[in-house]
């Protein structure tokens, strides 16, 4: 199904949404926030900011939350995908961005694609990988599925879902036992090596083979190639992060880079590939509950003071709720009003039925979007926004930390308005007379507050086709990779050593048993995107709708034929979908996308077991059974 753009504000009257004027809708939106905050205090408010929108919109969104309302309850769909990468990287290096640039993948010797179907999910990044392969780099694909990425690999390591830590540990142990670890780097730039070494000791190649399903020789090959390479890139995507212990998964991979010194140098680094156009920027702009713009820690009194004097309002000295905690707080009645900008949690969150229930408990829900999504249909006020990437000016930040200009090419339809204008109008009604003359004014305010963006004027961004952060000065550019400090000779320049993490293997929460014997994992296809709201708008010849993909062996065992409608049941829900037989899957593994939630609500099957550190849910591992449909009567 394709969606029509929203062209008028809507307000709820007698239970139904009806068209309204901007004046009425803005007044209703502001009144609800005012009423709830007066009654319950500022922490009853939560904002979900839009990872699809510009940095400028995210900056104003978090400022609205912190200044107009006075809470830190602001988050984005970042939580559903890469928050663990940010949490893991910032715990080790003090900065949550990927450490390398795309160009470095072309100039490296070994590329490890871990849990990343980049060939289909990040096709243009994969072109850089292909350039690297064509120049002689070896590529390893670690993925339960033999994906399009794996088809280009020298070696495919098809591990069991949720056994990334055992595999990483076995690789680490093999590197250490073969004497291939970088002793000088470990000594000078890291901490906690002895404990780490001890913790991986049980993971011999043969133990790891039993747990992960990957042959010992393949694990050995990966370990030796990665450790011996002059330069090596470790890239990952949601196969690592959509697990209940996702931050640990990320730390397990970072451990490997510390062990071998494959970080902080040109061509060697860690690259989490972000799934949404501006999910990196949303976090950088402070649209997360624990950071101020510029990824600056909210607990640091000096940093808070700087923002307080710029904004003229005290900032709460504590972290706000993340998305997962917001949803819980809605259930507890602590969060009573919510401002959702461009997010569709009803269809994107794991365990979608629970999410609907929680949103319906809110006293006042304002949704600002370009479509009347399932989430917007539940709102009290719906505000029609412009599509950031082509109907607004501003910037996005990509997976290599490159800030690039977004430019307005189209007029938004009907009465749809720019996100920043809408937020300023609501702020004005809540007693803050905000006005910005365009996105550049917002950007310059941000540049004054965020040292890593200070040198990025709009003019420079245009001239240089984007600039990677950090960029503290208008006169110079930093290297394209991060953490070069780890290689400094002078210990004071080297800074805080990067800590190894001691981790435990924790298998997926949703256990397989006789009733639910199959492992369901989810992902994207080349021509479709997330909940399909955007990608349903063009006639892709590749699209075949939702299917449940099984390997030929499982299909034969269950007596299923291609195209046959079957029932898929997890401990939380049940859906039907046609069978698609895919020899790239292994026995026991089934695959579905989440692109067609109106036809097949895949996320009614997935589990809401979340990572305690970052709050990301385990979309990648549910236990299901697949059954033939029986005709009634």
């Amino acid at each position, binding site marked *: 199904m394709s969606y029509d753009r929203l062209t008028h504000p809507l307000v709820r009257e007698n239970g139904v949404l009806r068209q309204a004027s901007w004046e009425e809708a803005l007044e209703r939106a502001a009144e609800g926030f005012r009423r709830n905050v007066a009654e319950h205090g500022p922490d009853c408010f939560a904002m979900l900011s839009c990872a699809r929108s510009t940095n400028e919109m995210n900056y104003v969104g978090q400022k609205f939350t912190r200044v107009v309302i006075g809470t830190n309850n602001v988050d984005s769909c970042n939580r559903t995908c890469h928050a663990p990468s940010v949490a893991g990287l910032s715990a080790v290096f003090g900065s949550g961005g990927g450490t390398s640039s795309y160009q470095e993948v072309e100039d490296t010797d070994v590329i490890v694609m871990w849990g990343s179907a980049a060939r289909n999910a990040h096709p243009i990044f994969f072109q850089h990988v292909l350039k690297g392969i064509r120049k002689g780099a070896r590529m390893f694909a670690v993925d339960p599925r033999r994906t399009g990425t794996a088809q280009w690999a020298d070696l495919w390591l098809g591990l069991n879902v949720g056994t990334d830590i055992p595999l990483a540990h076995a690789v680490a142990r093999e590197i250490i036992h073969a004497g291939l670890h970088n002793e000088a780097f470990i000594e000078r730039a890291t901490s906690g090596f002895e404990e780490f070494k001890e913790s991986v000791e049980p993971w011999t190649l043969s133990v790891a083979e039993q747990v992960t399903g990957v042959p010992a020789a393949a694990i050995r090959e990966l370990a030796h190639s990665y450790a011996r390479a002059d330069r090596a890139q470790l890239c990952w995507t949601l196969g690592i992060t959509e697990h209940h212990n996702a931050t640990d998964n990320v730390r397990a991979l970072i451990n490997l880079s510390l062990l071998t010194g494959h970080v902080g140098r040109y061509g060697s680094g860690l690259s989490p590939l972000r799934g949404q156009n501006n999910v990196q920027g949303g976090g950088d702009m402070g649209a997360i509950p624990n950071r101020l713009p510029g990824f600056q820690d909210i607990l640091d009194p000096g940093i808070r003071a700087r923002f307080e004097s710029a904004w003229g309002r005290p900032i709460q000295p504590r972290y706000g709720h993340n998305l997962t905690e917001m949803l819980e707080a809605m259930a507890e009645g602590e969060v009573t009003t919510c401002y959702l900008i461009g997010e569709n949690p009803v269809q994107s969150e794991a365990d979608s039925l629970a999410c609907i229930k929680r949103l319906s408990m809110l006293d006042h829900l304002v949704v600002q979007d370009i479509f009347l999504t399932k989430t917007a249909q539940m709102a009290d006020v719906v505000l029609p926004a412009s599509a950031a*990437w082509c109907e607004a000016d501003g910037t996005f930040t990509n997976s290599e930390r490159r800030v690039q200009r977004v*430019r307005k090419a189209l007029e938004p339809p009907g009465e749809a308005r720019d996100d920043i204008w809408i937020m300023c109008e609501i702020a004005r009604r809540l007693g803050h007379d905000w006005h910005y003359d365009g996105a550049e004014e917002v950007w310059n305010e941000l540049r004054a507050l965020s040292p890593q963006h200070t040198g990025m004027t709009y003019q420079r961004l245009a001239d240089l086709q984007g600039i990677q952060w950090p960029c503290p000065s208008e006169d110079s550019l930093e290297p394209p990779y991060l953490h070069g400090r780890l290689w400094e000779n002078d210990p004071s320049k080297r800074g805080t050593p990067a800590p190894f993490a001691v981790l435990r293997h924790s298998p997926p929460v949703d256990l397989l048993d006789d009733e639910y014997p199959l492992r369901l994992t989810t992902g994207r296809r080349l021509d479709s995107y997330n909940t399909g709201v955007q990608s349903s708008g063009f006639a892709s010849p590749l699209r075949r709708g939702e299917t449940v993909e099984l390997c030929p062996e499982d299909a034969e065992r269950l007596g299923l034929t291609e195209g046959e409608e079957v029932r898929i049941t997890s401990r939380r829900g049940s859906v039907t979908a046609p069978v698609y037989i895919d020899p790239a899957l292994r026995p026991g593994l089934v695959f579905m996308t989440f692109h067609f939630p109106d036809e097949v609500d895949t996320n009614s099957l997935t589990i809401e077991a979340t990572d305690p550190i970052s709050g990301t849910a385990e979309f990648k591992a549910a236990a299901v059974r697949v059954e033939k449909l029986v005709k009634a009567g």
Partner: protein
Amino acid sequence: MIPLQPPRRLIDVEIDGETVRVPEGSTILDACAVAGKDIPTLCYGDTLTPKNACRVCVVEVEGARTLAPACSRKAEKGMKVGTDTERARQSRKVVLELLASSVDLSTTPRAAEWTKEYDADPARFGDDAATVEQPAKVDNELYVRDYSKCIMCYKCVDACGDQWQNTFAIGVAGRGFDTTISTEFDAPLTDSACVYCGNCVEVCPTGALSFKSEFDMRAEGTWDESKQTETTTICSYCGVGCNLTLHVQDNKIVKVTSPHDNPVTKGNLCVKGRFGYGYV
């Protein structure tokens, strides 16, 4: 900042009597650009390895027996190049006459201008000159293959193949005048390996490959480049950050291209970035 390439020496080259200085490894075409010479090109692609197929960019190099294709021949120290000599002009004229007599160049940018400039007469081979005329292949909703406009420059094959996309959905089939660009067994695109990235359309110099939106608007007579604006922005799908140039006519996106010198995309896109704009 990227420590991989040694610094390149600068060399002096003489273009039509004027000395210009270019980095070692530059082509004659690069040197001509520095000298402000406008050399016609068709099969040359700024993101592709030169194929030397069309010969329309030939120049005369002093001391060389044959004319040299400017797009691929490297400039050398002290080289003396004539871009507008009698011999070079005659060669370009014949190339244009042969191409224009057999291929529909109506949508090739600047073809008409060059025909006039080189005094080419495509009609001189007579009415029964062989042509590649054939109906356009319209087999999907995203892009159209009109091989009556194909000059066999191979750019689409290179873009689809090992130079960029590595999908290998199309190749060269046949021999001699009957050579064509084809999918495997000439199957429709929908039965081929095509992933609809449109990177072949991006490099096509003649409009043989065109977006369905453009093809339909041209058929209706509503395609009007003078009314179009081009705005470069960032794709709204995944987090790679590809640059898109939106071609907008009457507040509607009619075509999406990508800047060839961009460090993220190098002129390439995927099916979502290229075609996934229908929702706005």
